[in-house]
Every structure is written in C-alpha cells, then in structure tokens.
C-alpha cells in the first residue's frame, strides 16, 4: 500500500477541505491560540531571584501547562518529581539533570516520564531557556527531601495571574485553552 512521501500539495493557497461539521466546529470548538514573543502577550514572571517563567498555555481539562523556563545564570531548580509526562526543547544556553548524563542545548529535545524525580542544573554562564510542555502534578522537595508543594496547572495559572494582578496587566485569553 502506497504512503505519502512528500506533502501532497505545495499550492500556495488555502484548499477548501470537505468538512461536514464546519458549523459545529465553529460553534463548539476551541480555536487554536497564538502567543507572540512580546512581553505584552506574556510577561516573564519571576520564579525566585535567578529564574523566571513565561507562561504560554493552560488546559484545565487535561491539567496541561506549557511555558518557557529561564534560569538567568548558573543555578539549580531543586529535586522535583513528575506524576505526568513532560516534553521540552532547549532554546538558549544549556541545562542538565544531576540524575542523567546528557546536556540539553538549543534545539535539543527531551522527554520526562511519570515517576521520575530529578534536579535541574545549568552550568552555562548565561543560564538556560527551554520550552516545557507538562501534564499533571509536579512535586517539589526541599534540600532535606521534605515535600514542600505539589504544582499543577492551577499553580502555574495562579503564578501568571498573580503577577498580572500585581502589575495591572490583563490576563491574555490566548493562554487559556
């Protein structure tokens, strides 16, 4: 059986695709979102003194949250444990986990799976930026292994909205799936 080996159309135009549920999709569907790179569309929200998070998407139905983590100079995000899956792409600088033998650099792709706990470190003089897509609970521990707090979509949303409130910013509806 043949299978596509190249895009079947390279026409520089919108092709009208048969869609029997167009009205329904318009009425009940959720539009895709666009969040540009400007601070107006989503600001850097401090996460401690040396890090910030730029929130990009929240899906409360699936407990999914997507953001860019920025650690500004060599530093650590202490040991935390995931109860759901994570995907990430390195954007700037580099980071690694004390538990693994790889280093994630710009363009590199990583996944993290439920049940894994690890300790994020950047040794790069300029720190790191990476895009994270995360699902489910993320448990943070202190340096003695005591559980401190479980983060999920609600924590991330609150982190974003609290900052917006304090700075008189209107939350960007494009972040809410």
């Amino acid at each position, binding site marked *: 059986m043949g299978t596509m080996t190249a895009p079947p159309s390279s026409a520089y135009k919108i092709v009208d695709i048969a869609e029997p549920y167009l009205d329904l999709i318009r009425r009940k569907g959720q539009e895709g979102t666009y969040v540009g790179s400007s601070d107006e569309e989503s600001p850097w929200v401090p996460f401690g003194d040396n890090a910030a998070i730029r929130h990009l998407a929240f*899906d409360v139905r699936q407990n999914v949250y997507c953001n860019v983590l920025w650690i500004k100079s060599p530093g650590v995000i202490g040991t935390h444990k995931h109860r759901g899956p994570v995907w990430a792409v390195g954007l700037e600088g580099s980071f690694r986990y004390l538990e693994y033998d790889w280093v994630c650099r710009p363009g590199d792709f990583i996944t993290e799976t439920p049940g894994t706990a690890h300790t994020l470190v950047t040794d790069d003089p300029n720190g790191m930026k990476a895009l994270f897509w995360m699902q489910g609970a993320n448990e943070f521990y202190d340096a003695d292994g005591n559980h401190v707090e479980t983060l999920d979509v609600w924590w991330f*949303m609150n982190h974003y909205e609290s900052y917006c409130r304090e700075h008189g910013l209107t939350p960007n509806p494009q972040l809410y799936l």
Partner: protein
Amino acid sequence: MTVMEAPPSTKAEIVDVPFAHREIVARLSPGGRYIDAQSDVDSPWVPFGDNAAIKHLAFDVRQGIFSNILWIKGPGVIGTHLHRGTIMMVCLEGSVKYLEYDWVASPGGLILEVPGESHTLVTDHPNGVKLFGWMQGPIEFYDDQANFVETTDVWWFINHYETYCKANGIPLNPKLYI
C-alpha cells in the same frame, strides 16, 4: 517509608482540604459532573443503524475525547474500523467480542484498544451488548470491501447527538460538553 494501606479517613464528613488555588479552580475549571445513564433524562438513545443506538455522555473538543454507551440490541456486527487514538470500554450487559481476538467480554470486563489497531466488533448474545466507552481520537470506518467510508471523531459524535436532539425537539444538555 510508609505507604497508605487503607483510606486515611472513613468519616462521612467533608474535610476542608488545604489547596491554595480554590478561587482559580472555581473560576476556570469546567467542573466535574454527573450524567445519568440509566434514564433518558440527561441523554437520549440515538439510533446508529437499525440494531444499535448510542447514548452520548461526554465530549471534550480540546482533546478529541468522547464518551458514550453503545447498545447493540441483538446479535450483530459493527464492521471493521481502525483506531488512531486510545479507547477504554467496560461491558455493561450482554457480551461482545472482536473477530480479531480470542476473548469474549462479559459484564464488568474492561476492554483497552490502542492506536493503530483495526478490528470487527461482534455480539452473538441474544440480547446483544451494552458497552460504556471513554474514547480519544479518530476512528476510521471501512465497508465490507475495505473501502474507506468515513472518519468519526468528537465532531461526528457531537453531530450525531445534536442532530437527533434537533429532530426530536430535545434541548441539548450542556453537561455533556466538558
């Protein structure tokens, strides 16, 4: 390190669980819900051919999820179809099998199906089968000559529900839309 071996409280009393984001949950969560499946109050049986009907229970358009009860009323077949997503079903009444597998599902049994599988659903039970399903992603249906006929996904299921409701003057139940 100790682990829980029994529920830590059996008190029939609401305990105020500490959670820092109650306000934001109240504002933005779609909320859990109960949909009655024993009656037609929340959702009617919508015919699916002469010998089958579907009671739609939930739609999540963000993840392409749909949940329903499939009822095949007597011995019958739902022809070969291919899944692109993940399916979880529980047999509620009667029995069901797939021509491709060696098991027969009976009430209470759990059926899992994964992306890439195609199969042919058969019930030989005199009373047919009722199956509760929680399904994600497209299902591609083929005719008996293996010609592709249609891809059904959350939109087909919503349309199936809404078309029947419109035709029968039944108000749409907002509870079905997660």
